[in-house]
């Protein structure tokens, strides 16, 4: 056992921190820190900076433009980005479509998509879920018809993040009714401007717009847009899950919450918060910090491949805990802000506005409720926490 970061890893982390200090625009970091959903154009300068540095696609194989980092380095990078309030860049394109194309895509598909994704010219959305296929993803119905050199799709996708700003959808569609339901699925790339694609926004509790319904009516795409072998969509999805074991642990985001809490508390004390209340909040904060430390070490153990038999269970465990801890962390901020979080706020309402914010809210308040509500979704997407508990049981205890 070697329970320390190596000198090399420590040096790497410092390098990342220096880069963040140089290259992340402070105004973007401030906007991201608020917690409202950022638009593609907001994130673009950061995407460019990462691309120029060669750090845009850490998860890809090196010969396709990846960084060649080890899992521990990727972790340190993501953690430092989280703490520095760096926004996420097109997650679906870079963490999902890219690796899938690198592993399964034809040369032609790689040629068409990998470089534009790296440059930030192509955004993707992920069209997996359907009204009747949620946790039971294998129940996907979206129908396909092969016509000459084309595939024609008909279906109804829902909860599709970023469909309204994406250039393409990676769509999980049914290409066969033979055998088990999961054996008849394929991944197909669909241009969002193709005739027959219709996007309808879905309003969410947090007050932002990020998810949509997507209707596909006789949408024709070239046959070559089908990724890899026909009917291998399930295997491709499994491959992805295996690679992105710890992304949903949200260590960077949790560190961000922990890092800013003492300052928030100080400002609230200065603004008249009762010292006894502050004591209680600080106590909860220290308890939460310990929970996050344990969580982070669970992630480190996964990255270091501690014991392979427990990997799947461990990955589900950190997914569950990541969402639970985020909900806790964001709720603790709401407690510290008190009645300042009552007014409904929009990204336009910042402390730079000449008008004072409603309810005496300070600069820390806008975005906090929005983000806190959004973290509910972290327990739902990517396999709900109930589904994850099922995975833990069947991995470890089922006989």
């Amino acid at each position, binding site marked *: 056992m070697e329970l320390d970061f190596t000198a090399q890893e420590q040096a790497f982390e410092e390098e990342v921190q220096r880069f963040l200090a140089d290259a992340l625009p402070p105004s973007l970091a401030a906007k991201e820190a608020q917690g409202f959903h950022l638009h593609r154009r907001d994130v673009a300068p950061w995407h460019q900076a990462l691309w120029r540095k060669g750090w845009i696609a850490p998860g890809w194989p090196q010969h396709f433009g990846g960084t060649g980092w080890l899992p521990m380095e990727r972790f340190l990078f993501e953690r430092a980005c989280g703490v520095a309030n760096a926004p996420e860049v097109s997650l679906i394109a870079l963490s999902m479509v890219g690796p899938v194309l690198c592993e399964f895509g034809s040369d032609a598909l790689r040629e068409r998509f990998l470089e534009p994704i790296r440059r930030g010219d192509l955004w993707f959305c992920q069209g997996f879920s359907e009204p009747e296929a949620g946790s039971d993803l294998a129940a996907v119905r979206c129908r396909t018809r092969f016509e000459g050199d084309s595939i024609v799709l008909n279906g109804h996708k829902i909860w599709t993040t970023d469909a309204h700003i994406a250039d393409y959808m990676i769509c999980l569609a049914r290409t066969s009714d033979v055998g088990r339901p999961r054996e008849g699925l394929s991944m197909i790339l669909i241009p969002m401007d193709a005739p027959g694609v219709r996007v309808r926004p879905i309003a969410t509790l947090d007050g932002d717009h990020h998810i949509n319904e997507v209707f596909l009516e006789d949408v024709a795409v070239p046959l070559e847009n089908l990724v890899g072998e026909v009917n291998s969509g399930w295997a491709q999805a499994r491959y992805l899950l295996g690679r992105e074991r710890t992304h949903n642990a949200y260590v960077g985001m949790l560190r961000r919450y922990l890092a800013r809490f003492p300052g928030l508390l100080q400002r609230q004390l200065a603004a008249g918060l009762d010292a006894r209340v502050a004591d209680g909040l600080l106590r909860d904060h220290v308890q939460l910090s310990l929970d996050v430390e344990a969580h982070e070490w*669970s992630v480190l*153990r996964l990255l*270091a491949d*501690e014991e392979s038999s*427990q990997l799947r269970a461990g990955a589900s465990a950190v997914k569950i805990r990541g969402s639970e801890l985020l909900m806790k962390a964001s709720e603790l901020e709401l407690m510290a802000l008190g009645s300042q979080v009552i007014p409904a706020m929009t990204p336009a309402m910042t402390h730079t506005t000449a008008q004072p914010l409603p309810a005496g809210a300070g600069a820390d308040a806008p975005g906090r409720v929005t983000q806190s509500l959004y973290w509910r979704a972290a327990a739902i997407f990517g396999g709900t926490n109930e589904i*994850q508990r099922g995975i*833990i049981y069947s991995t470890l*205890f089922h006989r």
Partner: protein
Amino acid sequence: MDFRISDEQRLLRDTARKVLAEATGTSGDDAWMPFRELGWTALPIDEAHDGLGGSLVDLAFLLEELGRARCQVPYLECCVLPAMLLKALASRGVAHAELLGSLARGEQRLGVAVEERSSAESVGAFSTRLAATPSGFRLIGEKLLVVGGAACDGLLVVAVADHETCLVYVPPDAAGVRIRGYSAVDGRELADIEFVDVPVSESAVLARGTAVDEALVEAQAIALTLQCADIVGAMEASMEMTAEYLQQRQQFGQKLASFQALQHGMAVLFIACNEARSMLFRALSALGQADISLRRRAASGCKVKVAACARQVTGMAVQYHGALGMTTEYAVGHYLRRSIVAEQLFGNAHYHLAMCLADHAAVAK
């Protein structure tokens, strides 16, 4: 970072698991025998003193097995803790090689007497005192909760002389030593010890001053972390027992394991065990740091987290066994008892959270 267990550690763990399972029910000297014969008493001590120079991670693996086996031998308290205390003193220039050697060879078991009736928090504020006499000193005071104190070969007593903390070696059969032994809820043996004008020679005062204060902090941080390893072992064993029971017990015409509520409950238990283990590794890592306050804080944080997880896991393990879990005949409830005692020994989660909070407030200022 590398979390892979080495071949030697695997051997240590597997041997301990087998030997301790076979030794269930033994007590006294018989129970200590494997600790001597398998070199476990030598593990915490360096090679220069007849030890094996084991690492803290090695010790953690062994302690986990003690927890798993619900072993009552006060190995942590009467071998590891005194060894760490003496080592910490030695690193500050106060060497007691013969004591370390006898611990390593298993010739002596040393009770460590720190705790008092009104636990004084500020360093050096113990009420047990050493008074000077023409021929040496007298020890006066009372110590509580000395684990293994009624069956040890020597006592290391923390006392105050001239406003300085000192560490005194006292033979348990010295005149004026009154030992009141008792059992804990989980069956381990403790003692409260009164010192009524116990004569102490100059040479029995092992160390004085800041060396003792610092050595105590250092040794206690290690003992606290290793205690957490014991708790982690107990938790994991109770989780495994519970999974096993759900496979066997039938109700409503099917095994309990087929009910999803219970399956998800097991997943929650795994998460708690997993996090406790992660926290243990974090503390073991932090104990290698130079800054002693970081070590102390990491050990405190470890206890907060591990104790909370243990409460959850050992409690739910009883719940999932139904009435059987409430019986003393069945093992699962004994893990609950063990974790209740372990939580309160060396300071409970509330105490250690307060320690973390104090550190935090100090850093903020």
